[in-house]
């Protein structure tokens, strides 16, 4: 990594504080793993643990990627990604199981609907100028209701087994869904770091007028970000439905806090103070590690919330303070 391939790197980028703020969270992750390994070698230090941590977070990876799309172009938090994801998941299940569509056709239809939802979000926000939170919160609640309606408030399941292979087919010891999520984030990171598109996105996020004057088609980019966010949420929903063989419309709401937690925690990793795809990916697995370990130690269900909340505040506070001290 060269020093000049990052945005917003201060002059003294070699300084200790800087380094600290960049890798503090990673060091803490390692420490956590070692700690659990020492405390529970027989259960934690097994292939099963590894598989659980890395094989179970696909939904979160897709959801955080969708959230990042719009956050990076400066739209404050798209509250509809979770519902959109959930709607795609129930839609593919309902169309296949209740309406007897071909499952692949149903999957394409579900992704198309999610993408359209993203486009409508974008249209309302970008072209009509309605507040982002209002639009996405309203759209999210609306979709949740629709999802409950088409499923009659009950979980729908019964997707065919071969369809499940798009999520579960094992490669090495991990399901293919893991690689899909990682590939998505790597592509995202590549775009952000190395391409004009990524730079344009960051600038639109930082200052719309400056970007417009530099010839960036700001509104198109923002609209695109909303649409792609819808697309990613839709694909994620379809993969999640495939993995469980069905879905329940209300599930998506339980992702809201973890999505935000992972995305904001990502701002404390690798590129402190900035939303970044790889930091977010690491944050997802970091949180999964912490919670799994605590479960193995025998902690009860409440511990995951305490952990999510505590780690988020502490990590970002430390990162903020270290980051600030450098200057």
């Amino acid at each position, binding site marked *: 990594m060269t020093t000049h391939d990052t945005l917003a790197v201060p002059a003294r980028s070699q300084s200790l504080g800087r380094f600290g703020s960049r890798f503090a969270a990673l060091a803490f992750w390692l420490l956590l793993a070692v700690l659990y390994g020492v405390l529970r070698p027989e*259960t934690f230090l*097994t*292939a*099963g*643990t590894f*598989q*659980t941590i890395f*094989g*179970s977070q696909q*939904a979160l990876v897709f959801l955080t990627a969708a959230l990042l799309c719009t956050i990076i172009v400066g739209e404050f938090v798209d509250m509809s990604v979770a519902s959109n994801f959930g709607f795609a998941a129930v839609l593919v299940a309902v169309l296949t199981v209740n309406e007897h569509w071909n499952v692949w056709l149903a999957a394409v239809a579900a992704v198309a609907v999610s993408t359209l939802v993203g486009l409508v979000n974008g249209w309302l926000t970008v072209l009509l100028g309605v507040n982002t939170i209002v639009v996405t919160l309203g759209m999210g609640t609306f979709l949740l209701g629709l999802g*409950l309606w088409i499923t*009659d*408030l*009950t*979980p729908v*399941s*019964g997707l065919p*087994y071969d369809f*499940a292979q798009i999520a*579960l087919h094992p490669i090495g010891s991990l399901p293919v869904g893991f690689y899909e999520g990682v590939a998505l984030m790597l592509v995202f990171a590549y775009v952000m770091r190395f391409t004009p598109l990524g730079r344009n996105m960051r600038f639109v996020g930082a200052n719309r007028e400056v970007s417009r004057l530099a010839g960036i088609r700001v509104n198109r980019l923002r609209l695109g970000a909303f649409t792609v966010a819808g697309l990613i949420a839709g694909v994620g929903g379809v993969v*999640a439905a495939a*993995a*469980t*063989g*069905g*879905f*329940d419309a*209300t*599930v998506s*709401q*339980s992702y809201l806090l973890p999505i935000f937690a992972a995305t904001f925690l990502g701002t404390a990793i690798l590129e402190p103070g900035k939303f970044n795809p790889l930091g977010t990916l690491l944050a997802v697995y970091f949180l999964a590690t912490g919670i*799994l370990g605590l*479960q*193995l130690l025998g902690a*009860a*269900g409440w511990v995951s919330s305490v952990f999510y909340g505590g780690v988020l505040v502490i990590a970002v506070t430390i990162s903020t303070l270290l980051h600030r001290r450098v200057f």
Partner: protein
Amino acid sequence: DTSSSTTSASGPLAGKVAQLEKAGDTYAAPSEPISGLAQVKGATVYYIPITQQAPQFGVTETALKTAFGKAGVTLQTCNGNGNPTGISACLNQATSAKAGAIITDAISYGLAANSFDAAIAAGIPVLNTNQIEDAAHPRAAKLGYIYAPGDKMMVAAADWIINDSNGKAEVVINQSTDGPAPAAYVDAAEAEFAKECPACKVTINPISTANFSLIPASTSSALLKNPNVKYVVSEFDQFVQPTLGGVQQAGRIAAVKGLTGGAQLTGLQMLKTKNFIYAAAGQASAYQGWADADAVLRMMTGTAGDELPEYTIPIRLFTRDNIGDVALTQAAEASGEWYGPTGYPEEFLKLWGLS
């Protein structure tokens, strides 16, 4: 609320209700002993309740922990969080950790069919408890079912209402939509009303764990739509408070009697303090923990073959009449003394050759 009500001794189902109000005399235990328990020592069994939000699973979990402790088996609990994704994650975690066995509680097979399939394919015994047997996945060597008395509890509540109202009640039942089993339980209650009380009118108000905030509003609108309703049943304990909120909002708290199924300490405390609840049906969740442990040990050791013994989980109807004799402590709840004599752990241990 101080208006008191005693079970109407002259009501149509007085005898049946009186029977339901009594604690049982015995807990049933299987007769066959288990052999080869030594081979499962050190194994880890996963316990996956549909949600830890419902108090009864905590009681079962405690009993399981005690029971397995005696057998040298470790219990690992994983919260299903009330949704297929969480449940799948738990099942997958157990599968990749090569669990000795998996016990699911109140989770229908179809909710996470792929993950159930995967666990069974990996050779892990799966015990599906508190559920209806899935037609597409019948019991087999690696898949056992223990049916829950949820229907009995709802029927008990129905009986009490029929008796209390002298056979002409209007009832709202807040039915959980979290899976097919709760619907089946309420169906049983409806059948009981149809059979025993043709003059009764039952309204179903579907509610769900994930939409807690909607419960008060939908309850109060159900009451507004049916101004003569005198009884509101909450299917499980965790729905009592929002249900109560709905009754309050409709301004009907003085006129309506509340009931709950799946009663644990919370519901019984409300019963005792005469807060809204008039009757509560509960199941012996502690005993269920021992029964689950017994069944799983049979599956793990191969003692059972393809057939598990039948376990009957006792239920009891608590009312403002008999609640005075019930010790409302966590210790009492965990011992199972509300439902019958507390000697059953000994009997199980005897069967396991551990006493």
